[in-house]
């Protein structure tokens, strides 16, 4: 890095004398124009990407928290719509926010929603595509989640809190100490987040990890020995989130 670049980076970080070789003393405060533009751009990007965290904190508090994060972590690349991948973990490390220990999970769900919205366009295999397979072929087939459908698991319920924050209803802000697996999928131009039953979550988890449909069914049965596999499979296909991959047609 040249001396000028290094000095400018230092000035952006607050060292107002760093540019003394290139700037009159009276001009040095003007570096704040760049500092302010950067900070407002980053805070604005985080506000757009983390609506539930923003709703939980309120606008003023969110701006302060986002600015603190932005000072700690500049983006790794210039696509601001993707900025904030480390926000959830950063929030979790902030002692001052420890009484809002659900904020990191909100951030994880916000970030996943954005990832799903911008995910690759891969069509889910329609039910007929599965129906065409022989029972033998079906049992050995694998069906992966399409890129615009992803799962996330929390140890404590979150969806009701997330929904309440985004709709501004103020209801459901209590998290219950029960695990919750959510399916986040793109629908049209929006994103739907839904809670999965344990057996459906078990089935789709195996699919997502590359297991066969037989292995997925076994996982569902292990989760709920009384589950109706035919009904479960029909329900899963109705979610339009799986892409069938056989040996001749792998993802």
């Amino acid at each position: 890095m040249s001396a000028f670049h290094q000095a400018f980076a230092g000035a952006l970080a607050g060292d107002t004398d760093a540019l003394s070789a290139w700037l009159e003393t009276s001009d040095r405060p003007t570096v704040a124009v760049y500092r302010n533009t950067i900070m407002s751009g980053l805070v604005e990007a985080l506000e757009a990407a983390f609506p539930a965290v923003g709703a939980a904190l309120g606008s003023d508090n969110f701006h302060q928290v986002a600015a603190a994060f932005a000072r700690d972590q500049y983006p790794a690349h210039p696509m601001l719509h993707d900025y904030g991948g480390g926000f959830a973990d950063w929030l979790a490390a902030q002692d001052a926010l420890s009484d809002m220990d659900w904020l990191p999970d909100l951030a994880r769900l916000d970030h996943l929603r954005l990832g799903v919205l911008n995910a690759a366009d891969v069509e889910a295999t329609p039910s007929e595509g599965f129906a065409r397979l022989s029972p033998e072929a079906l049992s050995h087939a694998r069906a992966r989640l399409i890129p615009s459908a992803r799962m996330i698991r929390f140890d404590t319920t979150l969806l009701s809190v997330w929904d309440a924050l985004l709709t501004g209803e103020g209801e459901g802000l209590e998290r219950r100490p029960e695990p919750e697996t959510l399916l986040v999928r793109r629908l049209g131009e929006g994103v739907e987040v839904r809670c999965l039953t344990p057996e459906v979550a078990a089935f789709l988890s195996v699919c997502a990890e590359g297991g066969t449909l037989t292995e997925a069914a076994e996982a569902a049965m292990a989760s709920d020995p009384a589950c109706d596999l035919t009904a479960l499979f029909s329900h899963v296909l109705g979610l339009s989130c799986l892409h069938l991959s056989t040996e001749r047609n792998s993802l």
Partner: protein
Amino acid sequence: MTIGAGLGLKPQHHTEATGDRRPGLWFEVHPENYMVEGGPRLAALERARAEHPLSLHGVGLSLGGPDPLDAAHLKRFRALIDRFTPFAVSEHLAWSRFEGQSVPDLLPVLRTTAELQRIAERIDAAQTALGRALLIENPSHYLNLRGHDYEETDFLSELVRRTGCGLLVDLNNVFVSARNIGIDPQTWLGAIPAQAVGEIHLAGHSEDPVRGAQLLIDSHDRPVADGVWALLDAALDLWGPRPVLIERDGEVPAYAELIAERERAQSVLQRERVAA
């Protein structure tokens, strides 16, 4: 189709913009906002592109920066160029990336002989990777930096000569810089090689909240100022018709309000002039 006056395309205007068939209308986007794998954002741009010429205006290459050019970013940029076949691709004489991180701003370069050589090489490499010539935009200036070997217009002209790039002249940046660091805008316009100008930008600016009219900020959050419209007339007198773009990034109004500004630019473009 003749490229006339265009608009920066905002997501909230996608539907109206796509259906707007007025002659000469075109749109510009920041490619960084469309560097996604898929989804509605890309689909909307596909629909707009099916009806209108498009320009890609990059903000992230950091051509004047200290870090090596980002090969992954160039690859993403090239993919968009191949997909959307824009009539123009532009970037800035600025930097925004250092120590492996990017910032959303256009930081000033020091116009030295060594930097001229280095930035020319980077423009050359970027043009090779992108498969086409770039238009390079003049930034807004806020600082009277010491240590330049070149006037900005000479530096830009030399980049054109060495790399074959063209220029995107942002007249709001010229206006803002004139106020902030004391350049003469008419002299500046007169020193730009006319044949290199491939596009003109117009935008609004604001006054610094502390220093007021002494320090203008290139904020893109209000209509184009009268002084900038006057520069458009002067520039077109010098260079002849060029694609003109209205940029708006903050306090984005209804499409009808933006298109009214675009219509004003179009009428300025269509005014009869003495041949340049």
